[in-house]
Each structure stands twice: as structure tokens, then as C-alpha cells.
């Protein structure tokens, strides 16, 4: 009997394992959190604190971490955790972080590094990024700077962290040029001013003797184009930030305005008026020759190249009201891309190429919006009384613009593409017409 029973059990064995043919479970995660990523940015340690013209290295270590925190927080994508949440790391911890403490603080990533003074008077600032959960080193970079340039090292470290974690290029080591306004409404003084993207290192570029408008950065050089009423003749000028040298563009005997560089910096697009209408011209910076691109009986202005230089977006009232149009770089193939309620103006092509930012004007309200180059996917990013004059961050993720309050005050603000991260950019005076420059080298 015993063998018989065993045989039966053996026979039955396959059936016991009769679980469903193991089609593996596969779960779709279609939503995540949009909450900013918690990231630890403790003070950067220093071996032995040394006095430098910019302060002691220990003090700089704290400030570098502070700048990185502020940059990351300002992006809206990160939530830096204060130094109080974990013990201050020492030099040995930079390459061997105590991950447990950062995990406890719920940080997902850790930015650390060091500040040391070199015998030749320069500073070395190390920058490390770790994944707190996998305990992997994600990135490390080092910067040697003069004591005066320590902020740039902090910005470069921020860019490296941002870029490694988001996969996009950064935008922190960059500058903004804008029009600083002061004085009563009837006698407004407008000066060109430049500052770091976080508002630091602010300085004025022009004295305010003549009115200036519409400054625009060259993406590749230390050159700004702007419109000046110097000598009572409004025209586009070029300004070299490094040398202070200025030069008028072209020999137009009429008004020229709204200059904007191509992404290679070789061509400057602008509007030139003749007998009441404005047309778009391309000005070759090297040869100083200009080519007319539009010839309608309307006001064509605010031209902006696509990043590949093949197309141009501009605004025109040729259809009756101010709208956006896209044409080839040689002026052919013009197509209207903005429709819908109200007017659309001051378009700027994103450095990423995928979007065009512009000012949507409906019922006396000016708002910042984006639209795809084919005219689809229009989206309003801001909702205030008067937001205008958008300009893209170098990575095409953030837009800076000017906001006019009902009391007449004008400020600079930035908004990211999600439309949820509306931030004030500090300026000492009223500010308008910002232009974001390229990443510094």
C-alpha cells in the first residue's frame, strides 16, 4: 500500500504547483509627485580656516552652500534642507559621507564639497553630488577661482548639480541685463544695468543721460544690443560689456529698434521704420551689411531666430491686429501662428527650440504665454495685470519678464514652464525689459 500512496502523491505533485502561469506583475506608475526634491546642502567644510580677501574659508564654505541652496530652491524643483537637520560634515566626510544622517533627514541627494585657500591666493572649491539612497557618487567638480570670483564657483556647482539631477543644462552661472528705472513718470531716467541671475553683483552700464530700451544679450559674446535715443535718433547700438565700447548699428537714416541676436551671435535681427511702416532686417555683425526680410505695409517687429537659425518668429499687424508669424530665415514662407482672443506680441524663441514665449494681450491684461512654433499648444503662464517682455533662461526652462503693478511700480519676475514658480528677482530700482544672458564660460 505504501508505494501506491507514494505514487499517488507523486502524481498529484504537478497539480499542487498549479499556480497561474506566472505572467509577471507589471504596474504602471503614471503619476509622481510634483513636490520639490529634498536635497541636503550642508556647509562646505574647510581644512583649516584661512583668511582671504573674500572672508575666511570657513565663512565662504557656509556662503557657498547658501548660494547653492538658494539657486536650487529658486528653480522650484528642489527643497534644500537646512544645515540644522544633520551634523556639519568635516573634510573627511566629503568623500565618505555619513549617508544615514541624510536619509534620516529625508534628503534624496546630497551636495557637499570644500573650500580651501591656495598658496598663490586663489581658492579651490570642490563640489560633490551623491545619491543618498543608492550611496553613489553622481558627480564631482572642482573650481579654482580668485577670491572675488567665489560666487561663480557656487553657481557653477549649482549648475552641475541641477544638470546631473534633471538631465537639463543649468542656468545659474549667467547674468541678466535690464532697464533700471528711476525718477518721476514725466522725467523717467532709464539706465542699462547688469547683474547675476540671482541679483548679486549689480552694476549700471549707462549713465541715464539718454533713454535706453530693449537690451538683448548676444548668446556667444560679451555684447549687448540695445536701443538708445542718443542724439535724438532712436537706433540700435551694440555695447561690449568687457571694454565698455559702444557702436551704432547700420547706417539707417530712420529709426531702428528691437534688435536680437541669432544663436551664433553673427546676425542681429531688428526692425527698421520707413514711411510709417516697420520691416525686419538681418544685420551681419562682421560685415555690417543688412538684408531686408519683410516688405509689407504693416508694422513687422520683435523678430527672434529659432536656435538652429533656420526660421524667424516676429509680430505683425498685417492681419489687422498684432499677431505672431513664423517665416524662413530668408523671409519666405510666412505663416501666422497665433489666433484666438486678443493680440499677441514680443515673441521669443526658446533656446531649446520647442516653444515660443510671448505676451498675450486680452482685454487690457498682459500675460506671459508659450506656444509651439506650429501654433499649437498655447498656454498662459502668468495671470497678473501687466506682465510683458519675456526672455528665456539659457536652458529654456525659465522665463524672466517685467511686471507692472497698478501703482506704477515695475519689477522683474521669473516663471518656469510649469507656470507655478513665479518669483521676484531683486533689483535696487524699478526694473523693466529684462534679457537673460548665456551661461558664462
Amino acid at each position, binding site marked *: 500500500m505504501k508505494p501506491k500512496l507514494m505514487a499517488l502523491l507523486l502524481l498529484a505533485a504537478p497539480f499542487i504547483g498549479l499556480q497561474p502561469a506566472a505572467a*509577471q506583475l507589471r504596474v504602471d506608475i503614471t*503619476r*509622481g*509627485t510634483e513636490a520639490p526634491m529634498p536635497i541636503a546642502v550642508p556647509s562646505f567644510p574647510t581644512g583649516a580656516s584661512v583668511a582671504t580677501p573674500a572672508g575666511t574659508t570657513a565663512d565662504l564654505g557656509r556662503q557657498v552652500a547658501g548660494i547653492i541652496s538658494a539657486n536650487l530652491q529658486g528653480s522650484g524643483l528642489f527643497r534644500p534642507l537646512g544645515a540644522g537637520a544633520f551634523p556639519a560634515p568635516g573634510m573627511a566626510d566629503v568623500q565618505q559621507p555619513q549617508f544615514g544622517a541624510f536619509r534620516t533627514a529625508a534628503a*534624496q541627494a546630497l551636495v557637499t564639497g570644500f573650500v580651501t585657500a591656495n598658496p598663490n591666493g586663489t581658492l579651490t572649491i570642490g563640489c560633490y553630488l551623491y545619491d543618498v539612497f543608492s550611496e553613489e557618487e553622481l558627480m564631482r567638480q572642482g573650481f579654482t577661482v580668485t577670491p572675488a570670483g567665489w560666487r561663480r564657483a557656487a553657481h557653477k556647482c549649482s549648475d552641475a548639480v541641477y544638470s546631473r539631477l534633471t*538631465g537639463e543644462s543649468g542656468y545659474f552661472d549667467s547674468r541678466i541685463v535690464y532697464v533700471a528705472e528711476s525718477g518721476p513718470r514725466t522725467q523717467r531716467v532709464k539706465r542699462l544695468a547688469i547683474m547675476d541671475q540671482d541679483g548679486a553683483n549689480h552694476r549700471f552700464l549707462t549713465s541715464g543721460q539718454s533713454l535706453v530700451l530693449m537690451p538683448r544679450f548676444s548668446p556667444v559674446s560679451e555684447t549687448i544690443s540695445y536701443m538708445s535715443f542718443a542724439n535724438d535718433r532712436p537706433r540700435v547700438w551694440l555695447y561690449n560689456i568687457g571694454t565698455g565700447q559702444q557702436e551704432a548699428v547700420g547706417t539707417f537714416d530712420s529709426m531702428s529698434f528691437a534688435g536680437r541676436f541669432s544663436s551664433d551671435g553673427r546676425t542681429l535681427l531688428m526692425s527698421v521704420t520707413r514711411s510709417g511702416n516697420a520691416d525686419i532686417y538681418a544685420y551681419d555683425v562682421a560685415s555690417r551689411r543688412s538684408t531686408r526680410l519683410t516688405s509689407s505695409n504693416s508694422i513687422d517687429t520683435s523678430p527672434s531666430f529659432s536656435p538652429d537659425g533656420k526660421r524667424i518668429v516676429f509680430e505683425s499687424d498685417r492681419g489687422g491686429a498684432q499677431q505672431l508669424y513664423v517665416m524662413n530665415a530668408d523671409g519666405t514662407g510666412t505663416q501666422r501662428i497665433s489666433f484666438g482672443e486678443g493680440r499677441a506680441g514680443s515673441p521669443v524663441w526658446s533656446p531649446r527650440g*520647442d516653444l515660443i514665449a510671448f505676451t498675450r494681450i486680452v482685454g487690457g491684461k498682459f500675460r506671459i504665454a508659450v506656444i509651439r512654433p506650429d501654433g499649437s499648444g498655447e498656454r498662459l503662464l502668468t495671470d497678473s495685470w501687466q506682465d510683458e517682455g519675456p526672455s528665456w533662461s539659457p536652458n529654456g*526652462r525659465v522665463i524672466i519678464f517685467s511686471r507692472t503693478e497698478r501703482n506704477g511700480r515695475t519689477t522683474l519676475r521669473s516663471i518656469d514652464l510649469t507656470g507655478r514658480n513665479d518669483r521676484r528677482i531683486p533689483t535696487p530700482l524699478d526694473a523693466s525689459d529684462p534679457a537673460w544672458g548665456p551661461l558664462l564660460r
Partner: protein
Amino acid sequence: MTERGALLAAGGLHLALLLALSLGISRALPNRDMSPDVTPIEYLEIGPVPTATKLPQPSMEAAPRDPGPPPSSDLPDVPMPQAPAPPVVAPLADDKAPQDAIAEDVRKAPPPRSAPSQARNSFDPGAMAALIDKAIPDAPVRPRDTSAFAKSIEQAIPKGARISPRQVATLEQAIRAQIAPCWNPPIGGADVSEMTVVLKIRLNSDGTVAAPPEFVSQTGASAGNQAYARAFVETARRAVLRCAPLDLPADLYTHWREFELNFDPRQMT
């Protein structure tokens, strides 16, 4: 003994008993001492055979009450319930009930020797006949209609060894509900709307990660967006590591011991 082992053992015992009874061997059993040495070693801990009187009933009840789609085909394609995610524990607790009943019975079971006679006395040949080919009693060695037999046995196997569509949905919901809040997808990137990544997850029975999430596949990556593609995969990995340990129904461990997660943020953009 692990719960899984216990369940398998219980299933096996049910089966053995079922076979023994239906094949007429039961007639020989009363004369025989059901000595422990006959019992295969893996059944030893259960030792006292479950009260035979109740054997068929709990087993049958343990089978899915809602027949649903064919149990063994295409589990992941089972349509999701429209209702919002039920609390993870509630429905599963319900499903567990029959097993708990069995376990309870095991604990209360009388000494082994009395079991066989009780089993014989309470055995309902009519019910069994519906399940098993009538020809089998005359052919003591091998059942002929294995498919029907397999089906009946499948139904008799306790919960946990197999999984109903409803449990699949519940398990998916539980995983989703725990992973999603930990995932910071890099939204706003130019290519985010087209990018997805599939990771293979291996978990210990306590919900902790048994091995680093393994890359399976990715869509939307190109030569031009490698940095973004890499960062994207890392956010998915981080989500799993950050969320662990996952709190998932222990009785379904065989189904979530290893599974795949498809991270697809299209609905977010």
C-alpha cells in the same frame, strides 16, 4: 514554517486525501495504522491531519467566488476596477478568511489517528463524483481526465497560491499608491512627454528591497537626450529605494516578490 509552506502542505494534504478517498483506497485505510512515517517529511509539521469532516468545505470556499476571466491567462491584462483604490488591507482580509479558518481547524484538530475514520464517515461520494471521473476508482493508478481533475484541484488549492483578478488589481493599486508619492519625475524637460522606463523590482517578504532596481527598458531616449534619459531612470530608481519597505499583503508575496514597474509620466504633463 512559512505561511507559503503551510499553504502548500495543506493543499497537498487535501489533494492526497481527496485522491485516497476517491480512489477507494479509503477502504483499505481503516485496517491500517496511519503511522507518521507514511507522511512525507514536508508535511510533518502539520502532522495531525486536518479534521476531515470539514476538509472539502473550506477548500471549496477558498476557491475564487467570482469566477471571472480564465484564471491562468494574462493576469496583467485584467481590466482594472473603476472604483477608487480600496484600502489595501480590507479586501485581502476578506480573502484570507478561509485560510484562517483552516489554520484554526489545524490547531483544534484531534489526534491524527481519529482523522481517517472521520474522513471516511463524512465523505460525500456524490459531491466527489462531480469532480472526479467515475472511471477512476476502477483504475487505481492513473486518472484519465487530467484537465478536469486539474481544474477541480486548482479550485481546491487555498488562496494565496493563486490570485484573482481582483487581487491583482488590489495589489497593483497598493504598489502604485506607495511608489507614486516617492517619485519626483523630472517634469518640464523637453522630452518628458515621450519618456518611460521599466524597472524590475525584487523585494524581500518584509517589503524591503532585495536587490537594486534593475533596468529593463526605456522609451523616448535618443542620442540627443542621454543626460535627461539617465536622470529619468535615476528618479525611478530613487522612488523605489525611497519608498521601501513596501507594505504589501504577505499572503500574496509570491506575486510581488518580483515585479516590473513602468514609469510613465505622460499624465503629468
